[in-house]
């Protein structure tokens, strides 16, 4: 009992460090990729090619005043950032990085990975409701509607892999991909996973919850300093987790020739991350009605069709 708990805490602290580093790298890459795609340089001043920019920003945030506006509902306002970050860290638990970096092989790992980040939706709603600010409230409500809309096609897209692998364990799914990736066997499932993940992460073209041109900052308008940083950390840690999960479940994770597994894993994860950044700085933002109907009228039917075809082919071919 105590040994398991201690092991788990050690893993969690280790992954907290990994998450923090991947957040810093993620933010740095985001600014650099955005810069170069728009024919400018991005951060250049702090360290060579601005490599230490995010580190400097992190230290700055630590020294910022912790402002809690007067009209907010204090309990909700204080709990929301913690509630947003915890699920992001928890979702890192079931990802089979590369042996021996497998924190825990849950027998329902896939279901866990899809269910736990959904707690973040509640954090977003609590933040929006407790802020006593019109922009926060609208951002929070939009978020809730969008996130629950894309949850279903996202689960259905991963379900095709579960069917092919015959298991809900992420480790078993990884082992079934030694010869051929599941992205090859169910390309539509993989495409759906990428699209719905972009929507779940509130990234452009689906970034309506914090559409800065119309909602200031969305649900975190009233947040500043460290508390705001936790929302940012949750977002980028979730970004890393979703990409790592995609790499493990669809792209064969650490499987690959010559290089050690962990290198392959990092390459595949960052390939997905960079692809999503590429999309972010290429496609303009959708309208809210387009976002909502896309999920219901296109993604769910396509996902169901994909499942049906996969099941029938699996049975009879």
């Amino acid at each position, binding site marked *: 009992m105590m040994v*398991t*708990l201690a*092991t*788990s*805490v050690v*893993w*969690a*602290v280790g*992954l*907290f460090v990994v998450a923090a580093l991947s957040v810093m790298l993620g933010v740095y890459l985001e600014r650099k990729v955005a810069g170069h795609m728009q024919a400018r340089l991005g951060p250049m001043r702090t360290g060579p090619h601005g490599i230490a920019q995010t580190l400097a920003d992190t230290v700055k945030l*630590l*020294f910022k*005043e*912790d*402002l809690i*506006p*007067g*009209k907010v509902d204090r309990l909700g306002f204080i709990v929301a950032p*913690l509630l947003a*970050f*915890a699920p*992001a*860290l*928890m979702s890192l*638990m079931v990802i089979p990085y590369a042996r021996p970096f497998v*924190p*825990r092989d849950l*027998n329902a790992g*896939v279901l*866990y990975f899809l269910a736990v980040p959904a707690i973040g939706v509640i954090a977003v709603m609590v933040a929006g409701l407790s802020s*006593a*600010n*019109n922009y*926060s409230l609208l951002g929070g*409500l939009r978020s*809730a*509607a969008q996130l*629950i809309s894309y949850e*279903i096609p996202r689960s*259905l897209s991963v*379900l095709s892999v*579960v*069917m092919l692998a*015959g298991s*809900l364990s992420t480790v078993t799914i990884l082992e079934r991909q030694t010869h051929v990736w599941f992205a090859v066997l169910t390309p539509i499932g993989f495409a759906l996973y990428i699209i719905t993940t972009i929507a779940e992460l509130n990234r452009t073209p689906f970034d309506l919850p914090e559409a800065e041109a119309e909602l200031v900052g969305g649900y975190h*308008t*009233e947040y500043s*300093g460290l*508390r705001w940083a*936790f929302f940012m950390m949750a977002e980028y840690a979730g970004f890393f987790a979703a990409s790592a999960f995609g790499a493990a479940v669809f792209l064969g994770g650490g499987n690959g020739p010559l290089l050690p597994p962990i290198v392959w894993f990092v390459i595949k994860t960052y390939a997905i991350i960079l692809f999503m950044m590429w999309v972010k700085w290429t496609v303009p933002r959708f309208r809210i*009605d387009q976002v*909502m109907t896309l999920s*219901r*009228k296109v993604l*769910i039917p396509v996902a*169901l069709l994909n*499942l*049906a075809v996969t099941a029938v082919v*699996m*049975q009879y071919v």
Partner: protein
Amino acid sequence: MLMSQRDAGDLIFILGFALVGVAAPAALLFIGRWLRPSSPGKVKMEPYECGLPQASPPRRLFRIRYYAFALLFVIFDVETVLLFASAPVLKRFGAAGLWSVGAFVALVTLALVYAWRMHLLEWE
């Protein structure tokens, strides 16, 4: 016994992660207390509305139009959960399993078609 040793271990593991997930940011906030300044002011404590005084407080009744969306979400979410239970063992039950799960999915899809026809999928 309700739970195997392994399942109990899994739950403890999840608990450990949840603890660190909440404790680590909380600890950072606590440490930051000695580093950051604090000088609250009357204007600073006002809700942020781009520099103007707040036009109207958000705590009032207004229509959010989520009823049909939320209802459909529940239907499809339950469908997904049931599919997650049957998907890993689908192959083991052969054609009979495939067609009975297929019939269930077809029924729920019928509900989607109905909702589509009733214009419940559109965002007003």
